[in-house]
């Protein structure tokens, strides 16, 4: 029995609001928290499998060319070495999110420095690592691989191109305008758990313990890569130690482990080193952006231009969608947007936390700050004046748009001074102190999702889906949804995730997990309630369930009568998406200090106000926002992938040299949640949260740097050397 909803129209009423258990939205601690902090939660490489062999990748030391030969005999003569696998099915690039098919294969064709070319398998990890490092490989080298995104040939992404009205005319004829160029550097996901897999065969059946975000797509990617049927593959990812996009699609380890396990007739574990995770999984493209904004005397936008150049390997369809929210965030009749992707030989560019807005919004919002200053209008007010009633390019309504409320409530909570602003007004010893703000926006998406909810004869429930929890709180919110609908505490709901034997969820990515799988659980519970109401002799709408019993004292156990009751919820995105622009909105406020001697910047405090539909768990939602804001700080001040100009290899490939913020860099952060119900976003009226928290935050810091010390910077991250070179006088 399944409860199916294809969302072709808004869902304006919601049963979640009429329930009695009182667990939905509450700031409950995550139910998997204890297992994680006590080390009993097993991550991919930690599953106990008998007779395990270990595989380590050998990686290319050329940028582009061909592997002519590998001296396998020499490696096989080393202690413990069992196999050198260079099978043509080995994947060489990370699959893009939701690909659902094998990424690039054929490891002999090298197209970036560090690409896996073979897997060395040995009894121990140390033996395999040593043999992989010493593998003698002969190459044919192509010397002319383009490496510089600024000069490489580029292709326009025509779907992104907008030419509406006459931007050049608006720029020339408006009272105020800015024409600015920004650069952002590449970013790494830098998830704590490295990419890892254990593959085990039982005849034709393959089981892979993996660290992946989207099992429903990953199973197809692995099956396709291996040339086997999806029915013969089982993926298990009960716990994932962070993904941030790097585990959306499969990377090289799971297919390699499967091929090696078949070859040697033993289960094989492959764990990437930290350096390999950096060098061969997935990067966020660097960007070069141009912002042209024009306004009339009163600060009403008359022209809006946003162009971006990003990069990727030849043959990749993904282009960092820098302009995603620029299409609708601010009104203006005259618009010109253009995205192009340069083809260069670095590792695959793909989804890294909030692809698009993560880097597009910081450029746009810094430009907005500069134009507001030119107009002499408070930057909060300037944004308020330019919020469009409808999507200015497609003439669609917004499903909901809390930008104005977030700006106002955020400003109030932060204590924003809306008086005249000019830089270099406040000094604390040798530190300049200043404030800045920026808008937040991140498009909302949903994915098809199925979940089975079973009421057991003892009156407790089991939620089962192949959905993953990558540290976000999925286990907990699904227990809350089921508990709320069925009148159970969250301890009475057993949530089972990350197993492809369960109904297919949407996977975690693009902040779509909670709204999508949450809706599937909700639909299943609604059907269960119908059945229970029938047994209780009432209507579903009148059925009150709390603490395992109806309002008139009939217990769930009695209603179930010794039999389990199970329903599968099936949520499908529908035509409603075509009728609305659906996005999360918000506002960031920051206070920073800039050292007048050294250019060091430290964030004193930060606040984010966000409108993202229904809040399912106030605590995990807030944690998502804190994470996003931490990413903002890293993007603004420290994070940059550095590529060698001669061979394109990534030089800073560990956590000592790729600088994510440390605890000391992250100050008091306040989160204001502007609760709302978005009837279009999902049947449970929730939207994505996680990524919104970094979409624009870096600009609040950049704008605060300017307000503090008068240095306008156009290059993220704003490291001390860049700040010093921009300091006035």
């Amino acid at each position, binding site marked *: 029995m399944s409860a199916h909803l294809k969302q072709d129209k808004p869902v304006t009423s919601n049963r979640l609001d009429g329930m009695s258990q009182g667990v939905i939205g509450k700031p409950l601690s995550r139910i998997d928290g204890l297992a994680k902090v006590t080390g009993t939660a097993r991550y991919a490489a930690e599953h106990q499998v008998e007779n395990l062999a270990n595989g380590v990748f050998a990686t290319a030391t050329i940028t582009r060319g061909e592997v002519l030969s590998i001296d396998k005999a020499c490696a096989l003569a080393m202690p413990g070495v069992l196999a050198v696998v260079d099978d043509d099915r080995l994947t060489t690039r990370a699959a893009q999110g939701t690909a659902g098919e094998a990424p690039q294969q054929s490891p002999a064709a090298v197209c970036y420095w560090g690409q896996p070319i073979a897997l060395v398998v040995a009894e121990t990890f140390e033996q395999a690592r040593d043999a992989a490092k010493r593998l003698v490989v002969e190459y044919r080298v192509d010397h002319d691989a383009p490496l510089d995104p600024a000069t490489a040939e580029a292709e326009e992404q025509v779907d992104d191109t907008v030419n509406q009205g006459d931007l050049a005319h608006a720029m020339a004829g408006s009272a105020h305008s800015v024409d600015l160029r920004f650069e952002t550097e590449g970013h790494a996901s830098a998830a704590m758990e490295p990419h890892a897999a254990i593959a085990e065969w039982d005849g034709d059946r393959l089981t892979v313990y993996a660290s992946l975000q989207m099992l429903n797509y990953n199973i197809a990617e692995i099956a396709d890569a291996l040339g086997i049927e999806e029915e013969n593959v089982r993926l298990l990812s009960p716990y994932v130690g962070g993904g941030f996009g790097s585990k959306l699609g499969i990377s090289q380890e799971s297919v390699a482990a499967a091929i090696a396990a078949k070859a040697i007739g033993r289960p094989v574990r492959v764990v990437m080193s930290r350096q390999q995770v950096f060098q061969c999984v997935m990067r966020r493209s660097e960007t070069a952006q141009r912002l042209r904004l024009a306004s009339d005397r009163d600060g009403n936008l008359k022209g809006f231009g946003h162009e971006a150049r990003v990069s990727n390997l030849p043959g990749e369809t993904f282009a960092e969608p820098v302009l995603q929210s620029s299409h609708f965030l601010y009104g203006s009749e005259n618009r010109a947007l253009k995205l192009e992707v340069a083809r260069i030989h670095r590792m695959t560019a793909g989804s890294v936390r909030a692809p698009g807005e993560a880097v597009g919004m910081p450029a746009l919002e810094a430009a907005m700050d500069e134009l507001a200053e030119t107009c002499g209008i408070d930057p909060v007010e300037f944004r308020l004046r330019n919020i469009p009633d409808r999507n200015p390019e497609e003439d669609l309504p917004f499903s909901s748009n809390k930008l104005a409320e977030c700006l106002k409530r955020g400003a109030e909570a932060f204590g924003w001074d809306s008086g005249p602003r000019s830089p270099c007004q406040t000094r604390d010893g040798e530190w300049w102190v200043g404030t800045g703000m920026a808008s937040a926006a991140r498009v909302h998406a949903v994915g098809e999702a199925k979940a089975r909810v079973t009421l057991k004869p003892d009156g407790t429930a089991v939620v089962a889906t192949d959905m993953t929890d990558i540290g976000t709180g999925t286990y907990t919110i699904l227990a809350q949804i089921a508990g709320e609908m069925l009148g159970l505490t969250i301890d009475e709901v057993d949530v089972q995730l990350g197993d492809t034997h369960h109904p297919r969820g949407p996977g975690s990515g693009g902040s779509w997990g909670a709204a999508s799988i949450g809706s599937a659980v909700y639909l299943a519970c609604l059907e269960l309630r119908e059945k229970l109401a029938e047994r209780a002799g009432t209507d579903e709408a009148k059925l009150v369930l709390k603490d395992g019993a109806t309002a008139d004292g009939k217990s769930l156990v009695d209603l179930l009568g010794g039999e389990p009751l199970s329903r599968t919820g099936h949520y499908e995105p529908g035509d409603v998406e075509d009728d609305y622009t659906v996005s999360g909105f918000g506002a960031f406020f920051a206070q920073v200090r800039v050292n007048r001697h050294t250019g060091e910047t430290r964030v004193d405090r930060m606040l984010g106000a966000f409108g993202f539909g229904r809040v399912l768990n106030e605590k995990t939602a807030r944690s998502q926002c804190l994470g996003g804001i931490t990413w903002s700080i890293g993007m603004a001040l420290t994070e940059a992938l550095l590529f060698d100009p001669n061979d394109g290899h990534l*030089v800073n490939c560990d956590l000592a040299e790729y*600088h994510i913020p440390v605890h000391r860099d992250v100050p008091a952060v306040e989160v204001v949640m502007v609760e709302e119900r978005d009837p279009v976003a999902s049947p449970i009226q929730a939207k994505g949260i996680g990524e919104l928290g970094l979409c624009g935050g870096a600009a609040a810091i950049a704008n605060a740097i300017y307000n503090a010390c008068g240095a306008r910077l156009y290059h993220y991250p704003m490291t001390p050397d860049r700040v010093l070179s921009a300091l006035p006088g």
Partner: protein
Amino acid sequence: MRSFDFQQPAGLAHASQLLGGRGAKGMAGGTNLTDLMKLQVEMPQTVVDLNRCGMATIDPTDDGGLRIGALATNTATANHARVRSGYPVLARAILAGATQQLRNKATTGGNLCQRTRCYYFTNVDQPCNKRKPGSGCGAINGIARLHAVLGTSDQCIATYPGDMAVALSALNAVVEISSGDSHSRSVPVRDFHLLPGDTPWRENVLESGEIITGVTLPSPVGARQIYRKVRERSSYAFAMVSVAAIVEMADGAISRADLAFGGLAHKPWHDPRLSDLLVGARPAVALFDKAADILLENAHGHGENDYKIPLARRTLVAVLAEATETEL
């Protein structure tokens, strides 16, 4: 990591004998060595664990100074009451480095011997004259953001990465080196590390079989002590530039000015001309600028690290201004 013999000698004589063997490498905290072994940057045939050789105590010396054993942990040293009271620049420098977890393992001797974090040194698939003599330098025309602007050679532009030794250089500490029970020698910290020249693989004066047994500090001075480390994130990052300063005033003039610099060179940088200029002079911004002129007279960058030259100037001037309470 290559297979290796692991030896745990119980005394210095045996340790020294083992370290005199081919391909032997001493290990104390192991925080740097084991990382480099995993990357096959270091491939010792024998690892000599020095942790059973004593040398972990911190003791007063007869002349009122302090002797810090080679195996005293960075945490123990930074928290030691005598260090905190008499040598705050050392405590501050140590606490500015690494993380608490690393400092709990890291030792005095190991810290002095830590190797550069040059990206090309730690990647065995890239050229590096330090790691593989004659293979070239990837950093000179590559990514040189971390790299040296003073005392470089056309072979190597790597920096010495540590903080502790910068403070020890300002304090004019002395390294005690033993080559067994009966033989020992003393080398000022300022002379312990070497410039790259044509032999970038030689980073310090230790000879085969020699072991650092401790570091001796002169008796404390009542001067103002400052350790200033500039970096883009506020912990767990190597210095873009750091300055250790011990400055004393008498009758409105500078009476002592011992300065050392991190992040600029293949060794903690000490330039005796700075003391010569500053001592006896009245503090003034123009004087500090002159000191920076002297310090950076022969500095040159490699594009990416050009910023270090103005940054070193600004940091030095700021530190001198703070130490002498001069308005900037």
